[in-house]
């Protein structure tokens, strides 16, 4: 059937071509993997319109139905139009909205940077509350987690050195040796799982969004 078989065929053909050309440096195949990434970005560019459309409608609905907190949707539109309009104007004026003198970049600096950095900085608080709540020696697994975290935390600041001058050395041994094995094991596992999953997708066994 058109609705199911064609997508499966497209995934199969695309996947197989990309895998095979990985081993062929001869043009035009050698660049195919890079080109495929560009193609992906282009499709992404188009889909961005669908995404923004969904978001704009989400807030439009809230406004129209006067849902609770509807007037915040006006703020949403204000922010959206501010970046969109200054972006278009700067793109026309400088030929590049990302020119350092553009109004687009001015608002990037005054609005986006503080919002971004503050949101990121909230992590300092959450990392504290999470350690307080979760780092309890409930069982042997949790104790290992807790003890390693505390050692590494102390070993990275001057206070740790004052407590025990070998603590920084122990910390670097944990980081360079002890945790290396499991991290590598997790990574190899993920890579193997990825390969198996990609094979299932290419072969059409895994078809979450199709059938």
């Amino acid at each position, binding site marked *: 059937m058109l609705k199911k078989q064609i997508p499966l065929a497209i995934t199969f053909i695309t996947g197989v071509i990309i895998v095979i050309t990985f081993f062929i440096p001869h043009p035009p195949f050698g660049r195919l993997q890079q080109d495929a990434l560009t193609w992906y970005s282009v499709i992404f560019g188009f889909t*961005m319109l669908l995404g923004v459309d969904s978001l704009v409608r989400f807030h439009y609905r809230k406004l129209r139905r006067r849902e609770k907190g509807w007037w915040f949707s006006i703020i949403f539109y204000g922010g959206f139009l501010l970046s969109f309009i200054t972006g278009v104007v700067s793109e026309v004026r400088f030929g590049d909205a990302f020119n350092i003198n553009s109004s687009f970049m001015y608002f990037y600096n005054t609005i986006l940077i503080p919002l971004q950095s503050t949101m990121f900085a909230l992590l300092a608080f959450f990392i504290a509350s999470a*350690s307080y709540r979760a780092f309890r020696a409930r069982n042997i697994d949790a104790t290992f987690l807790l003890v390693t975290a505390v050692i590494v935390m102390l070993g990275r600041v001057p206070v740790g050195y004052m407590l025990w001058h070998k603590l920084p050395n122990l910390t670097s041994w944990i980081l360079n040796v002890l945790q290396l094995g499991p991290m590598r094991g997790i990574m190899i596992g993920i890579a193997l799982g990825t390969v198996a999953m990609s094979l299932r997708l290419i072969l059409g066994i895994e078809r979450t969004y199709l059938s």
Partner: protein
Amino acid sequence: MIEALGIWVAAGLTLAIMSFLYGDNPIYKFAEHLYVGYSAGYWLIYTWHFTIKLMVIQPIAEKQPGAIFLVIPLFFGVLMLTRWFPRIAWISRWSIAFTVGIGAGLTLTGAIHGYIIPQVKATILPLWTGNGFSSFNNLVIVIGVLTTLIYFFFSRPHTGVLGKTSKVGILFIMIAFGASFGYTVMARISLLIGRLDFLWSSILKLVHFF
């Protein structure tokens, strides 16, 4: 004046986001909606400039070699937009299938060549290096990798020897998580230091301004 206004806005937004720590409130809601709205518009412009303009329009306008192949993503990109028309929306699955195909192909080769081969190679370590301590370290690394991999065995019950080794594996995993957690604390605190310093110096500047 413009500069002072900029500082006011930036400091105000910083406080607005921080107010979330106390709980949801109208000031946070304001900042959140502004953030989502502004950044959605920002990324639209970003995509236009760096993807559509630099990756599509420019190569075609300059008649770069291979620009003709851009027809392929343009075709699938337009098909994606069929989602706006419910009756033919199913065609957009072709585009999804195409991106999934690209993804599967790239991750398959990438995972093997970029992860599995180099990581396995790095784990093949001699357990005798002529130095007791570094020999011991190599042993710890090899055991860590193998027991962790055992933990990720799915098709057999974790009983007997398999069960015991996978228990060792999970302990190694917990150590790795603890180390990673503790290691990240420093960087996260640095971020807060940066933000509070900005806030404090803005306040000082504004006090000075008046």
